[in-house]
C-alpha cells in the first residue's frame, strides 16, 4: 500500500495542474460583463462632473465652439497644413459616408435610402458658407437634425481639424464665393505639389484632382478669417 502512495501523489499533482483560472482571470475587460452592477456592464460611465486630472474644459471656444452663446468665427487652434491633413483623414472616416468626399451631401450612405425630410447637409450653399466655424463644431459635437452626435467618436482637437477641412472643401468647390477667381485657383494647383501625407483616394469621380489647391486655398481663407476676427 505504501508503495502506491507516490503514484497517487504524482497523479494528484498532475491533475492539480489542470485549471483555467489564469486563462480567464476574474478581472474586468473593456465592454465586458459584470453582474455586480445593475446595468450588467463592466465599463462604468463617468459620474457627472468628473474631470480627469489636467483635463478641465475651461476654453469655451475650443470645447464648445461658442463664446457667450455665440459661435466663434475663428479657429481656436493654429491653422497648419498638418491640421488640414488630419481633418481630411478624419473627415473621410467619419463624415464622408453621408456628406460625401467633397461635402456635397452625396455620400454613399445618403444614397442608400435615407428618407429625410431635409436632405443630408451640403456645405456648398450660401447659408453654410457664411456659417461661423463654431457652428460646424457644434454640429459634430451635438448632432443636428437626423445627424447623431459624434462627440464619442471624434475628439475635440480632431473636430476642429474636420471643421478646418470643411472650410477648405467649401473654398475648393466655389473659390469665387471667397473672392478667388478661376485663374488664381489654377495657379495654386500648378505651384503646389499634390497634398501629401493623407489618405486621399479616388472613392468617387471627384476626389483626386481638386486636392492640390484645396488645402492651400483653405489655408489662405481661414487665415483671412483669423485676421478679420482680430480686427473686430
Amino acid at each position, binding site marked *: 500500500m505504501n508503495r502506491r502512495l507516490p503514484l497517487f501523489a504524482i497523479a494528484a499533482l498532475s491533475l492539480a495542474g489542470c485549471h483555467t483560472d*489564469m*486563462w*480567464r*482571470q476574474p*478581472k474586468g475587460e*473593456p*465592454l465586458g*460583463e459584470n453582474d455586480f452592477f445593475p*446595468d*450588467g*456592464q463592466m465599463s462604468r460611465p463617468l459620474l457627472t462632473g468628473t474631470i480627469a486630472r489636467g483635463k478641465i474644459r475651461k476654453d469655451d471656444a475650443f470645447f464648445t465652439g461658442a463664446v457667450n452663446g455665440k459661435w466663434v468665427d475663428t479657429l481656436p487652434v493654429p491653422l497648419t497644413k498638418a491640421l488640414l491633413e488630419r481633418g481630411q*483623414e478624419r473627415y*473621410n*472616416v*467619419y463624415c464622408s*459616408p*453621408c456628406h460625401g468626399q467633397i461635402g456635397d451631401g452625396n455620400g*454613399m*450612405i445618403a444614397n*442608400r*435610402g*435615407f*428618407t*429625410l425630410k431635409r436632405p443630408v447637409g451640403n456645405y456648398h450653399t450660401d447659408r453654410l458658407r457664411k456659417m461661423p466655424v463654431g457652428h460646424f463644431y457644434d454640429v459634430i459635437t451635438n448632432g443636428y437634425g*437626423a*445627424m*447623431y*452626435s459624434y462627440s*464619442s*467618436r471624434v475628439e475635440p482637437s480632431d473636430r476642429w481639424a474636420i471643421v478646418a477641412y470643411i472650410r477648405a472643401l467649401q473654398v475648393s468647390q466655389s473659390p469665387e464665393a471667397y473672392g478667388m477667381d478661376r485663374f488664381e485657383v489654377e495657379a495654386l494647383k500648378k505651384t503646389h505639389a499634390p497634398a*501629401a*501625407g*493623407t*489618405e486621399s*483616394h*479616388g*472613392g468617387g469621380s471627384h476626389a483626386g484632382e481638386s486636392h492640390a489647391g484645396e488645402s492651400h486655398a483653405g489655408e489662405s481663407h481661414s487665415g483671412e478669417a483669423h485676421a478679420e476676427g482680430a480686427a473686430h
Partner: protein
Amino acid sequence: MAQIFKPSANHITQATLMGLAIGVPTVWLAIAALSRSPANTKVNVPLNQPIPFSHQHHAWELGIDCRYCHTSVEKSSYAGLPATETCMSCHSQIWTNSPLLEPVRQSYETGTPIKWNLVNKVPDFVHFNHSIHISRGLNCNTCHGPVQHMQITYKGNSFQMQWCLECHRAPDRHIYKDETRPDLQPRQQVFNLYWKYQTTGLDGLSERERALMLGTFNGTDNPKEREAGKQLVKDYGIKVQQLADCSVCHY
C-alpha cells in the same frame, strides 16, 4: 508455488507493448491535430451573432472605414466595438423596419448593450495591443483575415502562440512600406490599402497586398522584400532581439 501468470499473459504483454508503441504517438498526434484544427481554433468558422452583421456589406460595398466603428484601434490596446449609437447613426434612417435590426433598436431604446459574441480573443495572460501593430503599418487583415469580405465575421488566424511568434521572431517577413505612397505614415498605410483596393481592384495591388486583402498572406520569403523589411524594422526602432521574449506579451 503456483504460477503467477497464465500462458495467455505472453500475448497480453506483447499486445500491451505494441499498443503503447502505436497508441501513445497516435493519441499524441491526434491531440496535436485536433488542437490545431478549426474545431478548436475556430479559424474560418463563422460565429452566430445576435444581429447578422456583414463586414462585406458595410466595409466593402459601402466603403465605410474600419475606424468609423472601431474608433480606438489607432490609439488603444483595444480596437473598440461600436456603441449601439454608432449603428443607429445610420439605422435610425435606413432599414428602420427591418426585423433583423430589432435587437439594435431594442438596445437603443432600453439602453442595454448588445451582447456580441467574441470572435477574436486571447487568454487573459496575454496582453495584446492594437495600436502598436497599427502604428507599424501592419494591416488589419494580417491577423484578422479578409475581414472586408466576411459576410458573418470569423476568425482569420488561430491566435495560438506559435502563430504570434512566427512574426515576432522575424518581423521583417511582415513589415512593409507601400512604395506607391511614400508620403503615408505606416498608420495611414493600413487603412489606405482598403481604399486602394476599392479604386484599383486586385489588379492594382502588389502581390503582397493582394494576398493581404484575400487573407492568404503568411509573411514573405522574397530576399529583397525581407531586406526592405529589415531596414524598416531598424527605422521603426523595433527591438528584434527582445520581440520574442516572454515578457513582451506576458506581463
